[in-house]
C-alpha cells in the first residue's frame, strides 16, 4: 500500500484530486501551483504530492521540470511559450498549437490566440468563437510520427 492509500483511499482517488487541484489552480491563477503549496491544499504530505505527480507524469499529460515543479499540465504550460491564449482579459500559455487550441476547447470559451508562423514569425492570429475557429489561414505541422511523440515531447 502506498502512503497515498493510507490517508486518502486509493492512489487513483488521490491522483484525481491532485489533477483537479492543478487544473483549477491553473484556471484561477493563470499559472501553475508550486509543489510546496499542494500539501496544505490537499491535506496531505509533501511525499504524497511528489508520488502523485510522478504517477500523473506517467500519463504524459503532466510533465515535471528537473526540480520537480510542474512544467506542463496539458494543455497548459507552466512557463511562457510562443503559444499564448487570451480569454477575455486573462492569459495562459500552451505547449504547442494543438494545446493552444486545446485551452478554449477544454474551457468551452471564446479565445484569441496571437500565434505566429513557425518559419518566419509572421503574425497569425486565430480566434475561437462559439465553438468555431476563425482568423488566419495556415496549416499545422507535426514533426514526429505519432508512435514516437513521447520519445522527445518537446521537439514533437
Amino acid at each position: 500500500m502506498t502512503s497515498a492509500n493510507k490517508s486518502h483511499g486509493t492512489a487513483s482517488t488521490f491522483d484525481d484530486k491532485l489533477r483537479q487541484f492543478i487544473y483549477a489552480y491553473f484556471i484561477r491563477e493563470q499559472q501553475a501551483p508550486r509543489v510546496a503549496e499542494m500539501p496544505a491544499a490537499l491535506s496531505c504530505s509533501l511525499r504524497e504530492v511528489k508520488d502523485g505527480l510522478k504517477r500523473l507524469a506517467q500519463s504524459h499529460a503532466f510533465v515535471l521540470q528537473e526540480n520537480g515543479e510542474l512544467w506542463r499540465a496539458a494543455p497548459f504550460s507552466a512557463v511562457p511559450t510562443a503559444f499564448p491564449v487570451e480569454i477575455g482579459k486573462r492569459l495562459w500559455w500552451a505547449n504547442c498549437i494543438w494545446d493552444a487550441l486545446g485551452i478554449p476547447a477544454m474551457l468551452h470559451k471564446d479565445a484569441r490566440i496571437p500565434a505566429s508562423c513557425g518559419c518566419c514569425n509572421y503574425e497569425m492570429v486565430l480566434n475561437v468563437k462559439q465553438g468555431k475557429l476563425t482568423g488566419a489561414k495556415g496549416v499545422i505541422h507535426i514533426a514526429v510520427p505519432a508512435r514516437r511523440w513521447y520519445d522527445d515531447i518537446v521537439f514533437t
Partner: protein
Amino acid sequence: MLLFRSEHHVDRWCAQWNRSRGGILSLHQGWQLATEWYADRLSPSWRPKTVPEAQAAFAKIGLVEEFWKLA
C-alpha cells in the same frame, strides 16, 4: 507541433532544421483534434485515452495514414 502560413513555409522550416516533413493538418482538423482531445479534460472521471481510443479520435477526423499510427 507548430503553426505555419502554408506548406511552403513548412518545407522551408524543415530545410532550415534539416528535418524531413512530418504530418500536416488543416487548421480545421487541428481544431477538431483539440476538441476531441480536450473537451472532457476537466471532467472528474477523465482518464487518459487508451491507444485504441486515441487512434479512433484520429480516424474520426481523417488522420488514418501510417504517420498517425500509435502502435
